[in-house]
């Protein structure tokens, strides 16, 4: 039998259901695995084994009483450090929140608890979710389990690495410009970002409010669908959340929707900057779909080249305002050198934030400044509208869009830390999806010659998660890349 910690939710749910396995056994297996490998991977900022085992016991008791809550009951789900969990520290991998403990659960956490999931540990990330390599964490650098010299991607690098290393059965990440999909691709696991509004942002420490979404990492598309289904829905605490306008019975969709589909391939996503191995791999994936009877359509998303600049205006503007609350007055880092209100602000923020966060706050402050607002922020919002228009036009003729998730496989630690622009381009294929508010998933599509994972991105229509899952599921089941695990 395969190691428990590499099994899927569906496999484990069956074992739990049949009584062959208890949640405590499963949790203990995951704790043991984590204790064994996390020294190398460094995916977790912290975890509380006793608390996790107590949740597992509660799950076993529910099950014994005939009150099991569904496929997630008793399954350990790792949590990115940007999501609030009651009575746990929420540091966003920043010194700024070193001592902050949340008095409440994020809505997605509440919903996972209601589904019986075990809330498991705090996963490393780029500080305040700003970065593409998890090297911006103020606490530790997470390694990619496939090659410990390389980065796991980011910002949800801890969530992706923990999945790849078998330190959780599923994890949660957040995706503002690719922060779930890019690390999922680089770590060879499934990662998906829902349609904007599908999952409540309440309890997600905001980076860029109009782009942020919570989403799952999982071993399989089906597992990701199970986790998403537990979290979605309109939340009265988040005015931007909405009840899905599409089908949300994803398990049924995976069974029923078999294609063949009409799939779009945007030429703009295979140009300059793409790694040849990645390009060849994704072309093979497209060919596979063609071989399955799908119609492949060359499409154009003409404003794609504007996505990165637009993103770095919109996201930084919102971030500059969202992160203003970290000022040293109450719960955030307070400088001991502060002498008055002004130095309390400046010194606390100067000491508490890392370089990338400061860079983005400065950028965002600049683009919102009087006299520059129209030229930058307002204009960026107009271009954002054009980018969405490109997608809407494409979706008139296709069911989904296939692209590489990341232009390159995992790169070496330190390789891009001194070149922010090169780092920003890691998200070149994922960013436009956030700007358009669409759902997208990264599914493992093979490996480079040196054994690094590659991810295929499937972009769906707004609230078209069911179809998008089905398309990704078909590819996954036709390849079984997910059954390969890294040697640690």
């Amino acid at each position, binding site marked *: 039998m395969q190691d428990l910690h590499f099994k899927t939710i569906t496999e484990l749910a069956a074992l739990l259901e049949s009584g062959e396995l208890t949640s405590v056994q499963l949790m203990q297996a995951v704790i043991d695995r984590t204790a064994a490998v996390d020294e190398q991977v460094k995916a977790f900022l912290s975890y509380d084994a006793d608390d996790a085992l107590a949740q597992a016991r509660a799950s076993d008791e529910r099950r014994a009483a005939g009150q099991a809550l569904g496929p997630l009951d008793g399954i350990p789900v790792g949590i990115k450090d940007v*999501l*609030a969990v009651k009575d746990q520290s*929420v540091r*966003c991998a920043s010194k700024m*929140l070193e001592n*902050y403990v*949340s*008095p*409440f659960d*994020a809505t997605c956490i509440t919903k996972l608890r209601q589904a019986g999931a075990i809330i498991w540990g705090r996963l490393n990330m780029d500080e305040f979710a700003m970065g593409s390599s998890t090297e911006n964490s103020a606490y530790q650098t997470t390694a990619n389990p496939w090659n410990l010299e390389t980065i796991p991607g980011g910002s949800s690098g801890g969530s992706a690495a923990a999945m790849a290393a078998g330190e959780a059965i599923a994890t949660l990440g957040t995706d503002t410009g690719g922060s779930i999909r890019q690390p999922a691709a680089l770590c060879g696991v499934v990662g998906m970002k829902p349609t904007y509004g599908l999952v409540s*942002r*309440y*309890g*997600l*420490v*905001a980076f*860029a*409010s*109009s782009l942020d979404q919570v989403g799952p990492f999982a071993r399989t598309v089906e597992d990701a669908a199970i986790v998403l289904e537990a979290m979605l829905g309109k939340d*009265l*605490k*988040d*005015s*931007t959340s909405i009840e899905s306008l599409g089908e949300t019975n994803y398990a049924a969709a995976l069974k029923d929707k078999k294609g063949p589909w009409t799939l779009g391939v945007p030429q703009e996503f295979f140009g300059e900057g793409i790694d040849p191995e990645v390009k060849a791999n994704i072309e093979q994936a497209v060919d596979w779909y063609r071989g399955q009877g799908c119609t492949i359509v060359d499409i154009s998303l003409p404003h794609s080249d504007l996505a990165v600049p637009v993103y770095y205006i919109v996201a930084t*503007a*919102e971030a*500059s*305002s969202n992160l*203003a*609350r970290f*000022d040293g*007055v*109450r*719960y955030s880092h307070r400088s001991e050198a502060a002498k008055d*209100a002004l130095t*309390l*602000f400046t010194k606390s923020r100067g000491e508490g934030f890392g370089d990338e966060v400061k860079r983005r706050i400065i950028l965002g*402050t600049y683009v*919102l*400044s*009087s006299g520059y*607002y129209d030229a930058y*922020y307002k204009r960026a919002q107009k271009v954002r509208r054009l980018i969405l228009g490109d997608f809407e036009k494409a979706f008139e003729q296709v069911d989904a869009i296939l692209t590489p998730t990341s232009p390159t496989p995992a790169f070496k630690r330190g390789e891009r830390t001194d070149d922010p622009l090169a780092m920003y381009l890691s998200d070149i294929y994922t960013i436009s999806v956030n700007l358009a508010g669409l759902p997208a998933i990264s599914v493992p599509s093979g490996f480079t010659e040196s054994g690094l994972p590659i991810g295929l991105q499937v972009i769906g229509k707004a609230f078209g998660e069911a179809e998008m899952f089905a398309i990704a599921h078909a590819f996954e089941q036709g390849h079984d890349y997910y059954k390969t695990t890294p040697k640690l």
Partner: protein
Amino acid sequence: MDYEATIGLEIHVQIKTRTKMFTAAPYEYGAAPNTLTDAVVLGLPGTLPVLNHAAIEKCAQLGLMLGCEIAEVCKWDRKNYFYPDSPKNYQLTQNDQPLCLGGEVEIELADPARNAAGEHRWVKLNRIHLEEDPGKLTHEAFDTLIDFNRAGVPLAEIVTEPDMSSSAEAVAFLNALRNLIIYAGISDCDMEKGQLRCDANVSLKPVGSTELGTRTEMKNLNSISNVKAAIEYEIERQRDVLESGNLVVQETRRWDVDQGISFSLRSKEEAHDYRYFPDPDLMPVEFDRNRVEALRAELPERPFDKQRRFEQEYGLPYTVTTVLCPNRELSEFFEAALETHHSPKLIANYVANDLLRELAAGSEHGAQNLKVSACQLTPAHIGTLAKLIDEGVISKQIAKEVFTEMFATGELPDAIVEKKGLKQSNDTGEIEALCREAIAGNEKAVNQYKDGNEKAINALKGPVMKATKGKANPAMLDELLKKLIDEG
């Protein structure tokens, strides 16, 4: 050269709602510091604002009361600035799309005669928008304390056009505005409790010039007398500046209540760049037109309209209407009393004089904001009292005693009259005997009357009244005395 002043006011009014603007935390004045907060009020990481629709409706109602256009969409912006009383370091407000546009307020300038109607004119409004109140700072010797109870309370900011030219007009405006707001049930407008706050913009220009001079803004005007004093001080200060050949500097000034002077707070160059941008956490809300019309239909009659109606419909003098009409409760009490007995002048006098006097005697809050509802009297009490007088059952003299009694006990006047045997005597036989005694006992008065001094009859009435303990019908007494003297 002679100068004239141009004045514009910005008034902040706390809107009376059960809960705060963007969360369910309650608000009341005077609670222990930091007891009326929650995670949203404190801007804890991961929290999101959720609109309180009651605040929007009340603000719209205020706008309708002041003759504004109500915007079709209610949109929110972030005003970014760092200050320790601001939990998020941005304030949710409405920058470019205020909820209410235009409008005007009818004011009455005090007439030098005081008991005659003053001149009326209309002051134009620019806009009313909604925003959230910040917390409150208290500066101690070495520390500054923050109370976040007030943070997040809905505030309506009413901005006038520069449409006033004297402190008297500003005072008249504030009084009229206050009455309108209290009438509409939007706020109690207690300036001591910070429910109504005022900033004043003042500039001077040569008499007759159409071009406005450089303005200064005066902050911290927390009573109507402060507004008056600060404007007068500023007009004189600017006149001195201009007359000495200097230029007025555009700046924000702070009024020092204790010293009675203002000093510069910051110049135009030091003004904040608020970096406004649309709040990505709140969706713009469309304001249902039917709802606006429903709110319009619920509006109370405006105080000056009521005053004019009272003068025409009931023939009441200015001295009475000017007491009754600014107070909605009092004026409605008066009209309700008319339903028991239609004797407008008599009842108006009882309400405007006797009732107010008794209320003021028992009030801890001074003459303003007297609450009729706080006493035991109902409109039926006063109506019945008037009826007893008009029907000759009791004299006005006796009515005073009945009034005091019913105010103290809440008993109905007819019951009091019955119980105490206060019915006025119409027994001509007894009274005639007493009259003859009086005539016989005061020859001087009789002669004066005979000489044409009608008032001399009063001297004869006194002893009769005394002997009947005031129960003699005065009108009947008058006639009887005259008849007996004339008969000789």
